[in-house]
């Protein structure tokens, strides 16, 4: 029987097998940020251990940074201390840091691929669940806890049990107005917020092959929202073209040699998966979430489920709890509902193609006067590129607030938050209670749907504006 893409990478990274236990998995790249690393640095220092392979670590500050006036000291004292701690830890242990003010700074899952640090065939970890993003390049990439960050610091390895494997095939052509974010929201709505727990997911099929690298990253990014440890896509010509010329990608002959090796990274025709799911791209509609986990999503012109349509008592209870928090009614449509905020950003949708999609929709137009629109590039490089293309003036002319790179209003940790009780159409990845700020009500959607809401001030089917 053949091997899956996942098997091939996994097998190449096994140092040894613990008797009756997990595998010792070697980690090629370790990304760190200010929030989940300090206790790990602390831990190895307490044990008197050095960092085993500091050159395989890249650090940035993203979660806890302001997106305004990054040249000034951070106002919030705890945030400032945490970012300062990262600077000191990296200096003491010889870790490359792209901190505030550095031209390479940005959201960790945006800068890794952008710099070419992320490369096909690698194992990649970070103390952040959206590390699955890097799977778009044909890597085994997954989020870890701080104790595991400490393990990678100490030995560049993790003890891991091999997960089950799922393949999701998406075939055919996407409809106009439908983008990668809609595909992944549609998948999660179908299999639920816990439906892929215990699995690593390979995304395949003609619709995936046609996607750009950035669109593939959006899909892999949200694998964790259905419980999967990670998601991955076999590298192809699109991947190699993206890699070529990136600052940390191999160059010249070395690149050609690498590409030859990368071409071997695919699931064999007779490879077996524990589960397979098939989706027709043409069935995917622009999506929006109505509840408090990413599985509570629907086509934008649909209505919220009624209690009668649900079988299990537990599902009815879940819906009731979610709708009470969201201030919505079962059976209600969302089209036409007023929203107060639009957030375009996060490791899911803050790359240059996302900004281009939004700019193309709003060029020469103004946002609705009653909606506040925050647009936050994923990295300093995305911000520079947006400027080179004149997107910054399009956003400013539209009345959007264009900020500096960071996680921003995705997670209610830094200064950017949505006020309690207000609605936000957000391109981020989680609609949990309080995720964008205590009491904030998040509706997850694509950058196109977010742009449409910015223009109309309401939940809008983007296809009516195309």
């Amino acid at each position, binding site marked *: 029987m053949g091997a899956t893409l996942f098997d091939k990478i996994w097998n190449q990274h096994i*140092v040894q097998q*613990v008797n*009756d*236990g*997990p595998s*010792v998995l*070697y980690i090629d790249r370790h990304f760190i940020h200010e*929030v*989940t690393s*300090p*206790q790990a640095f*602390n*831990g190895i220092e307490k044990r008197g*251990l050095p960092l*085993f392979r500091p050159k395989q670590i890249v650090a940035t500050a993203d*979660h*806890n940074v302001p997106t305004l006036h990054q040249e000034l000291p951070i106002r919030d004292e*705890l*945030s400032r*201390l*945490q970012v300062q*701690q990262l600077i000191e830890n990296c200096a003491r242990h010889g870790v490359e840091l792209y901190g505030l003010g550095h031209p390479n700074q940005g959201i960790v899952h945006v800068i890794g691929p952008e710099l070419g640090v992320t490369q096909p065939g690698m194992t990649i970890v970070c*103390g*952040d*669940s959206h590390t699955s993003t890097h799977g778009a390049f044909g890597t085994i990439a997954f*989020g*870890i*806890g*701080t*104790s*595991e960050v*400490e*393990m990678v610091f*100490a*030995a*560049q*390895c*993790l*003890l891991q*049990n091999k*997960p089950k494997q799922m393949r999701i095939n998406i075939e055919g052509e996407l409809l106009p107005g439908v983008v990668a974010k809609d595909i992944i929201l549609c998948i999660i709505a179908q299999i639920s*917020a*816990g439906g892929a*727990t*215990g699995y690593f997911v390979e995304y395949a099929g003609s619709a995936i092959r046609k996607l750009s690298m950035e669109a593939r990253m959006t899909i892999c990014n949200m694998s*964790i929202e259905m*419980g999967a440890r990670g998601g991955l896509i076999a590298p192809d010509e699109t991947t190699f073209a993206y890699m070529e010329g990136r600052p940390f990608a191999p160059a010249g002959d070395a690149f050609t040699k690498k590409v030859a090796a990368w071409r071997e990274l695919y699931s064999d025709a007779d490879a077996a998966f524990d589960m397979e799911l098939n989706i027709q791209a043409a069935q995917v509609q622009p999506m929006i979430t109505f509840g408090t*986990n990413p599985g509570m999503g629907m086509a934008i012109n649909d209505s919220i489920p009624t209690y009668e349509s649900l079988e299990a008592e*537990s599902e009815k*209870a*879940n819906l009731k*709890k979610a709708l009470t928090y969201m201030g919505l009614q079962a059976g209600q449509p969302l089209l036409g509902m007023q929203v107060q905020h639009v957030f375009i950003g996060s490791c899911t949708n803050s790359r240059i193609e996302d900004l281009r999609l939004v700019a193309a929709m709003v060029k020469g137009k103004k946002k609705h006067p009653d909606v506040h629109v925050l647009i936050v590039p994923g990295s300093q490089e995305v911000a520079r590129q947006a400027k080179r293309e004149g997107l910054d003036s399009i956003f400013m002319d539209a009345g959007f607030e264009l900020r500096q790179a960071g996680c921003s209003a995705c*997670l*209610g*940790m830094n200064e950017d938050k949505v006020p309690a009780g207000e609605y936000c159409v957000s391109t981020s990845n*989680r609609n*949990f*209670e*309080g*995720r964008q700020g205590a009491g904030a009500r998040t509706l997850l959607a694509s950058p196109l749907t977010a742009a449409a809401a910015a223009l109309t001030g309401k939940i809008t089917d983007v296809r009516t504006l195309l």
Partner: protein
Amino acid sequence: MKPLKEIESRFVPLPIENIDTDQIIPARFLKATTRDGFGKNLFRDWRYVQDDEQQPVASFVLNQPRYSGEILVAGKNFGCGSSREHAAWALKDYGFKAVVSSFFADIFKNNALNNGVIPVRVSDVFLAKIFSQDAEAEIQINIEQQTITILLTGEQKSFDINPYKKTCLLNGYDDIDYLISIKDSIEKYEAARK
């Protein structure tokens, strides 16, 4: 880590599904640089009205004196969402040594085990049985035997735990001790790949 063999205690019921780590510990409390003190912010936004410790939410289980104990019993898909280990630290700091549910999110499960908080997975039926017990009922979790018992009724089920992790828990070892012990093999692996 201290060795952990058995837990015998009353339990705190939280029959809600898909409890994500943003509920266990909201992001605004992740600014600390140590592992201590997260317990007071455990389930912060479910515990207090508008973040005010003077206004506890009376209906929330942590605010009900009749419930106490070292075992949290929660609905399925516990710990989904963010990888923040702060969620495990908050549970531990509050005093929980085990979480019982019918389904755990992967990253949370590892984080809990790495901090000596035992994720005990039981069937939906057994979970419902625990929820139906009185507040005074005691539960015993035996790691060596891999059993969970409702002491009042004597009903007992076994649960899965990775044999390697079990050895670690019983002896108080952690993964770093193990990884350091095989450093030579790791270096050999690196050399062979070059």
